[in-house]
């Protein structure tokens, strides 16, 4: 991968960004900055304003108020030349071949065909895209398609990459491989801005911003978010298969129990120190002190009081 020789500015700076559509405020006075080489996670409920923010940062949408600097520039044209954007669904044309997609994307960027092919060879190598170039995109498995989409998004060597749910529907091993690519891109100096509904992926981000109703309600490292959201003791409970169905309700009723929520086959419990919840557990329940997951953090912060 070609490492861009850019001066050491923050990759993204946002000051009091507001985007309104008519009388609806999609993004409501947010400020943050992202440093070069960072993996920055962007989480929030559907409709919280994540995609609108990304579109503003890519220069696709003019902010109502506020100032943004992306890859060292506030000029929309310059920004567009320095960012790559991989949206969830519409990045590649299903009825074009892999090569046609690459050429199309490169020519839109006004790159010469010779340069496009040269870049694509490097990127295919980087991303591990080994399918024949004349394969129709619709015949590629989801994981391979995403590798191609990432290569196309990197074609013009952008310094900031926006990935909107890049791994939705991708098999576990391909998801793993994709995150390895993200890691390698950032160690080569790229900045990655990523949204995801997979909380295990959010764990891999350097910092995570949580959006609700157009505002950023928390921004920290995954560990920092967990400490702030759950200062109290936190446990994982595994009830035996034969436990009575109403046991969670009984535990929730114990004074000092703040939350008990299902986590796959297990339960996560947050309770004040000294709360007597252990007495209410079914016999044979395994309890273990664990850190909360980012899903717990998400549920508490996004559902919690403003």
């Amino acid at each position, binding site marked *: 991968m070609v490492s861009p020789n850019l001066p050491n500015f923050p990759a993204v700076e946002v000051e009091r960004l507001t985007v309104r559509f008519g009388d609806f405020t999609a993004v409501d006075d947010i400020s943050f900055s992202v440093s070069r080489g960072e993996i920055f996670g962007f989480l929030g*409920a*559907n409709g919280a304003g994540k995609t609108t923010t990304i579109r503003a940062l890519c220069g696709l949408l003019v902010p109502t108020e506020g100032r943004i600097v992306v890859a060292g520039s506030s000029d929309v044209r310059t920004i567009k030349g320095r960012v790559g954007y991989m949206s969830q669904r519409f990045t590649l044309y299903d009825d074009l071949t892999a090569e046609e997609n690459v050429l199309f994307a490169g020519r839109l960027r006004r790159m010469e065909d010779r340069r496009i092919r040269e870049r694509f060879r490097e990127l295919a190598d980087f991303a591990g895209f080994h399918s024949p170039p004349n394969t129709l995109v619709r015949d590629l498995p989801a994981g391979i398609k995403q590798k191609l989409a990432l290569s196309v998004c990197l074609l013009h060597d952008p310094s900031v990459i926006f990935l909107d749910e890049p791994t939705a529907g991708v098999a576990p091993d*391909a998801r793993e491989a994709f995150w390895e690519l993200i890691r390698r891109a950032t160690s080569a100096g790229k900045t990655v801005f990523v949204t995801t*509904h997979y909380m295990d992926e959010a764990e891999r981000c350097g910092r995570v911003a949580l959006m609700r109703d157009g505002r950023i309600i928390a921004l920290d490292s995954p560990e920092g978010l967990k400490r702030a959201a759950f200062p109290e003791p936190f446990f994982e409970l595994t009830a035996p298969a034969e436990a009575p169905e109403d046991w969670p309700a009984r535990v929730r009723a114990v004074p000092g129990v703040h939350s008990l929520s299902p986590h*796959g086959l297990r339960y996560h419990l947050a309770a004040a120190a000294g709360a007597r919840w252990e007495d209410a557990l079914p016999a044979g329940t395994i309890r273990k002190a664990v850190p909360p997951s980012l899903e717990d953090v998400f549920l508490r912060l996004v559902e919690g009081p403003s």
Partner: protein
Amino acid sequence: MRGVSLEVRDARKKLGSVPALDGLSTSFESGFLHGVIGPDGAGKTTLLRHLIGLLHLDSGAIRFLAEGREIPFDELRPFLGYMPQRQSLYADLTVSEHLDFFRDLHRVPAPAYREKRARLLHMTRLEAFQDRRAGHLSGGMYKKLGLMCALLSSPEVLFLDEPTNGVDPISRREFWELLHDLSSETLVVMTTAYMDEAERCGRVHLLDRGRFLASGEPRQLLEREGVPDFDALFRRLSKFGDTILISPSVK
């Protein structure tokens, strides 16, 4: 017609030159929430389209059973509900107008409709959004509207194609609670690409490249293979390609 179960035996289907269903066998017993789980391209949608009679197998069989006998598909048809994966609602109709439209489509009688409508709106917590157009709903609310439309005809068997795809963790959680409540009286078969959702199903059917890697109760499947989660289970089984079937324990 109560307690419908479904059996699939050696189902095969080629789409073009691709074996989309490559010798699938499993059973969907009544009384459970069934999850068909696999990545994009595994064959989830193709399987559902066969189960609801939109496509026909090249070979193999799909049998519906109820009240101790096999039910011919035509007899069962009015009792099936289906929520497709693609956005299939009308962007310019409101929540309320959608319910009225599907009432007419399914010929739901007026008194039953009033009661049903109130119950569905309450269950999905969409009472306050009745006048909002579908095009302006968030991803989670849109999926809930789709679910309500599929439930208006009171189906005995409900097929949902990726109802939680692209839905945030809170809405996903709510959706799962809805499905759990439904599955006590309806056979629910849903598909998802999120492996972590496997643990929330009563029965899991892990699908990869047109074949089932495993079918059974989630806890038993994980214990039997000694893996911590379904990501790990999928990785392991996808590599070796043999199928594990665990017969359901008595509930």
